């Protein structure tokens, strides 16, 4: 089944931006808060911004860009009011959401929007490009729901690139709605949602203190010898807390619904960033 487009507007381009700076007394101040409908931003706290969707969508053909810059020593939290429902549009083109974020030395960014729901027939692309200073603290959650209740999802490719001081930390692309992925026990299994949270710089998870998987080479030699194995993952039901090779941890979860997904991610997040 294909959901019809909800309105007849033509595709839109929007470019919103958030930029912090150090204000008096070292407090964070929002230097820039530029909305560009449908990407509407509202400051809801000293260093909290909510993304308020002021139109349906994104729809096919839309191209939305959000630039985030967190200045050294400042903090920012970005949330959203509601889930993002991605719909097919009047034209066949993909909807595109691009988020770039730069997080400076000693800065902290929490990016925790509500889930993205892929409605039937949508064709969506997301790109997140995150560039961090080595000691930046980032907590970045991404949740994708494969269609509304009982609905087959449209297509989505969501690419995430995080680079720390120029060295790649995490590059992953979640692809939904392709025949090869659907129902594959290797990809999502029977799950209806996928989510991950990247955590860097919080320092509490023991793995965070390691940089790289670390020779001596013997460490790698024995998959079967627990005593020589560094940096083990922590496992929960449908969820894993994965120490990355670089300075960060990825919480990765699969779930049957959005509520379960959030529970699983939060379980792992508590371990990664207590």
């Amino acid at each position: 089944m294909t959901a019809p487009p909800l309105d007849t507007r033509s595709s839109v381009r929007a470019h919103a931006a958030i930029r912090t700076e150090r204000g008096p007394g070292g407090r964070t101040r929002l230097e820039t808060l530029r909305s560009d409908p449908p990407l509407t931003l509202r400051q809801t706290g000293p260093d909290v911004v909510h993304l308020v969707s002021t139109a349906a969508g994104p729809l096919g053909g839309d191209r939305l860009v959000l630039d985030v810059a967190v200045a050294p020593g400042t903090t920012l939290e970005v949330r959203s009011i509601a889930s993002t429902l991605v719909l097919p549009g009047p034209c066949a083109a993909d909807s595109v959401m691009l988020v770039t974020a730069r997080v400076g030395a000693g800065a902290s960014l929490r990016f925790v929007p509500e889930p993205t729901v892929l409605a039937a027939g949508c064709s969506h692309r997301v790109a997140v490009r995150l560039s961090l200073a080595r000691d930046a603290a980032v907590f970045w959650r991404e949740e994708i729901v494969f269609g509304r209740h009982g609905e087959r999802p449209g297509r989505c490719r969501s690419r995430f690139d995080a680079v720390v001081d120029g060295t790649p930390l995490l590059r992953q692309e979640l692809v939904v709605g392709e025949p090869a992925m659907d129902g594959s026990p290797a990809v999502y299994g029977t799950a209806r949602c996928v989510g991950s949270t990247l955590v860097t710089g919080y320092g509490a998870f023991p793995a965070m203190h390691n940089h790289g998987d670390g020779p001596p080479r013997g460490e790698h030699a024995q998959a079967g010898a627990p005593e020589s194995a560094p940096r083990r993952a922590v496992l929960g039901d449908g969820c894993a807390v994965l120490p990355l090779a670089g300075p960060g941890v990825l919480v990765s979860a699969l779930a049957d619904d959005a509520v379960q997904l959030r529970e699983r991610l939060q379980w792992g997040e508590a371990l990664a960033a207590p």
Partner: protein
Amino acid sequence: MGAHHDDRHDAPDGHDRALRLGIGGPVGSGKTALVAALCRGLGPSMRLGVVTNDIYTTEDADFLRRAGVLDPERILAVQTGCCPHTAIRDDIAANLDAVEILEERFGPLDLVIVESGGDNLTATFSRGLADAQIFVLDVSGGDKVPRKGGPGVTTADLLVVNKTDLAPLVGADLAVMARDAQAVREGRPVLFTSIREDGGAPGVAEWVSGVVHSWRHRHGHAHDHADGPGPDGSGEIPVTVDRA
């Protein structure tokens, strides 16, 4: 350019490295017990490492660690993907890797024992992996086993027939086994043992010791022990029963 690797372990001529001893044989014949006995017997005079290939992963390694015969870190387990013979004969890369890790971590070593996963009578070690090999049978398989031969029984440098204490119970005639083994092995040595009853395998340890000494002699391995004469697996040891 700029590569700081060390090729010495890739050299198949065995110059300046430990002797690699393969121990193979069917499931349950007592390979792991023999390895434990050798560690006990040789540990005080030799620098040892052990690689196990048990299909149940770390089962053998755990047994050896619990037995306390060797520093647990000197025991590595290799998974063989359901194909124990492949890992010691056709694709020895993982075992070589494990051997080299032991040599790198604890070297120089005198002896690295590679215990194969339990397999059938056709399983033998590649010469690329083992410099010498022992094949372990037990009497409970019946006294016809040596006659059947197979590469393990016929070509191993030493054939060990274990669990001789069970011979009367299973109706196995040790004399028949000795005669048949001799016939198919063209003079290569055979030892009869009861590791459990004797609490060790001194005869096998003595044989291994001799092989290690002659290995050192041939390959100029730097060591702090005197070279002993001893057998080198070329047939000096006759069929004997391993009892003091």
